[in-house]
């Protein structure tokens, strides 16, 4: 019974390791952010499975839920921040170009 859960846990952990590749290699900041969001969502599954392995799902499910909420807020906050920052940067450049012309 528990062997099955440990196997699932191992598979989910392997998936997370594969996602870490994208987080480290990246290429653009958004690739890294996307990988971080995916890792966070996978961590929710990991937490629930750990709860079943240790036969304390009641406690770990609460942890998983708060983790899911925080993960979503984190993604939204960072994405929003980058968007507005770059927006301001672009409008600054454009207004400078208009002044030059």
């Amino acid at each position, binding site marked *: 019974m528990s062997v099955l859960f440990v196997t699932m846990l191992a598979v989910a952990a392997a998936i997370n390791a594969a996602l870490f590749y994208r987080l480290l290699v990246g290429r653009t900041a958004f690739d890294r952010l996307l990988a971080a969001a995916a890792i966070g969502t996978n961590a929710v599954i990991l937490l629930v499975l750990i709860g079943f392995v240790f036969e304390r799902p009641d406690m770990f499910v*609460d942890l998983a*839920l708060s983790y899911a909420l925080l993960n979503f807020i984190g993604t939204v906050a960072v994405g929003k921040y980058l968007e507005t920052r770059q927006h301001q940067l672009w*409008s600054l450049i454009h207004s400078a170009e208009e002044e030059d012309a």
Partner: protein
Amino acid sequence: MSNEPRQVDVRPTKLRQTFRWTVQTLALFVVWLAFSGHTQIEFLIMGAIAAVIGTALTHWLFAGDQEARFRHKPYPPSWFVPATFRVVLYAPWLLWEIALSNIHVAYLVLHPRLPVEPSLVEFETSLRSETAQVLLAQSITLTPGTVTVDVSNGMFMVHCLSAKSRQGMEEGSIQRKVAGIFAEEAPDSVQLTDVVAVEQVLP
């Protein structure tokens, strides 16, 4: 139909806002109860305080969104019964599309040569109500190989993963389905514009 103004100012009234906050506070309190599972008076008071703080915080964060807003004309109450019925009929089709889209992505990813043909396209929707546009955006994201990137002023920007999914967008069958739910009009085919230059995406 097309001559009358389709968008009206729906500024929320004081009564409506109070009602909204009351419902939100109660909902937060119920969630607190479900998660704590305790019924002692101290925990209830703590939960009530947390619910009020949560509502106040959302009001503070999203105050700008509750100011003047131009939206589609409100639907009459009698409209909601058939619309709900049509949405319920729409759900199984959407679930089937979700399954198809996952199989499509899995096929593309697992294929040894990775046969992707990505393209970013833009089109103008014929849908006027905000709710219909949101449903269309969500449905596009869930259908095979397409993701909605941006929606503003009725212009949809969609990223297609393969040539097949791009063709699906051109046929515009999702838009016709959503238009059917909201009793709006939709064309037989959609004019897609390719987005290839940075000037097209920046204001």
